[in-house]
């Protein structure tokens, strides 16, 4: 069990503040670091992986400072965003070299195990320069996993991967998360984070915008309008009863969907109001589904906030 702690960390480059007073704890399981391009995700990952010093604050792994401490790499596996990886080596030579550099007692066995884990043994004798993007990503994963690290840091791992490769990598990461490893990956693609991580850390313009379960994050923001799609035994009567309460700010009768589109201003107020109103009016609720539960809507709210 390994935990990365980011304590009041800022990083600036000249006059530009890339990371602004961020505190967070990354523990076992999968954590998604979400934010648009330029949000400071890579800067933060570089600090977590010991390749950038914080301008202020501290980044530690189980209490040990990461910057200028090469011993932390016994516990950290890093999958960088850049693709360059000694293109003149074969996949086998590359992963084996990584195992040797870690000083493992049986580097050959470790390299074989890592390549099997990412299902790249079949292409291990090809030069990495001839690999597709997805294959490179998996061999990079193998090199990061060769010493069986407790922490895995991945910077935009899904960039440029096709859907099949993406699913494979997600399955792999899920396994690592389930094993109790601390897995952190960054992404600006909302669906990726949504599919893989329940726990997210959101960065916007260098700031820590939100943290926690992605559904809960939105619910914490009680002043944000929420949209619901509701189907009932009498949509018109239900609409009339709901609009009388201050928890809703707008109701639309969607003829095509044969449903009500409701905009609630008060999340908690609306969730207690709807079943009460329906029961009092003798209306049966068939469907109550959030229309904007996707991370995209959460994210666009955070960005515009």
């Amino acid at each position: 069990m390994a935990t990365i702690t980011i304590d009041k960390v800022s990083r600036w480059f000249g006059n530009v503040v890339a990371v602004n007073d961020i505190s967070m704890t990354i523990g076992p399981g999968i954590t998604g670091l979400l934010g648009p391009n330029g949000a400071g995700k890579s800067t933060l990952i570089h600090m977590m992986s010991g390749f950038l010093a914080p301008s202020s604050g501290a980044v530690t792994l189980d209490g040990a400072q990461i910057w200028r401490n090469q011993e932390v790499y016994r516990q950290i596996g890093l999958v960088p965003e850049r693709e360059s990886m000694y293109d003149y080596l074969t996949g086998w030579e590359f992963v084996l070299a990584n195992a040797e550099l870690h000083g493992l007692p049986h580097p050959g066995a470790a390299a074989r195990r890592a390549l099997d884990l990412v299902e790249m043994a079949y292409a291990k004798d090809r030069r990495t320069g001839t690999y597709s993007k997805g294959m490179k990503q998996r061999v990079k994963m193998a090199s990061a996993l060769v010493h069986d690290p407790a922490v895995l840091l991945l910077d935009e791992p899904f960039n440029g991967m096709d859907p099949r490769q993406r699913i494979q990598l997600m399955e792999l990461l899920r396994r690592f998360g389930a094993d109790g490893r601390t897995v952190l990956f960054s992404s600006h693609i909302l669906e990726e984070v949504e599919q893989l991580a329940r726990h997210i850390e959101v960065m916007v313009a260098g700031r820590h915008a939100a943290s926690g379960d992605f559904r809960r994050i939105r619910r914490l923001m009680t002043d944000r309008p929420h949209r619901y799609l509701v189907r009932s035994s009498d949509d018109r009567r239900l609409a009339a009863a709901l609009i009388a309460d201050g928890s809703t700010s707008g109701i639309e009768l969607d003829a095509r969907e044969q449903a009500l589109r409701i905009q609630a201003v008060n999340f908690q107020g609306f969730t207690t109001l709807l079943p009460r109103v329906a029961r009092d009016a003798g209306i049966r609720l068939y469907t109550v589904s959030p229309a904007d539960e996707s991370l995209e809507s959460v994210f666009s709210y955070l960005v515009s906030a």
Partner: protein
Amino acid sequence: MNPTVARLTLRGLLGRRRGILLLVVPALLLLVSAIASGTEGSEHTLATRILGQLDLGTLVPILGLVVGTGVIATEIDDGSIVYLLAKPLPRWRIVTTKLAVAIGTTWVLAGIPTLLCGLLLIGREDGIALGYTVAALASGAAYSALFLLLGVVTRHAVVAGLGYALIWEALIGNYVSGARTLSIQQWGRAVAETVSGADLSAEVSVGVAATLLLTVTVAAAVLASVKLAGLTLAAEE
């Protein structure tokens, strides 16, 4: 020394187009020497011109530049250095291993051709061939270390290295005598003069030259280790 770092460095250095470029330098020296050996005139003058000006003055620094920057700057530029640095491996071991590969390569590609050219041009006379060979080895080591350091501290290592070799040593060194005191080429010439016993117009004493050659090599390795330990990978965002 770390054998894995050495293996990766050597393959990176001798592979790609750089490997061919590295062979061109000694081939050029041998070709010029072969042509010159057939001409008439003083063997001594011819040998000191070719070995002193072309070899020690131009080809050894170019070789040192290509090799010294090639062992590390390329990996820093393309980001693959991260696979070496994200390991529990002391930075000084990475630097000393890469420096050993650089010096070894420079010695093979500068030392052997220098000796062959010297023998071709003047035979064993005056010990000139041996003198310039030792000078090529000593200055080749210092150039390798200096340019390796440049590869760690600046993204423009080749330009900075060319600036030193061509502008400082070759141009300014020709007109300003003080500049010649701070010139690896001149330190090498002092070594050649001492080993051969011939007058090769060295500007500094061999004691000063040897001390400075050693100081530059060791100091560059230490500084490169310190700089590599704090190497920052700039965010791409």
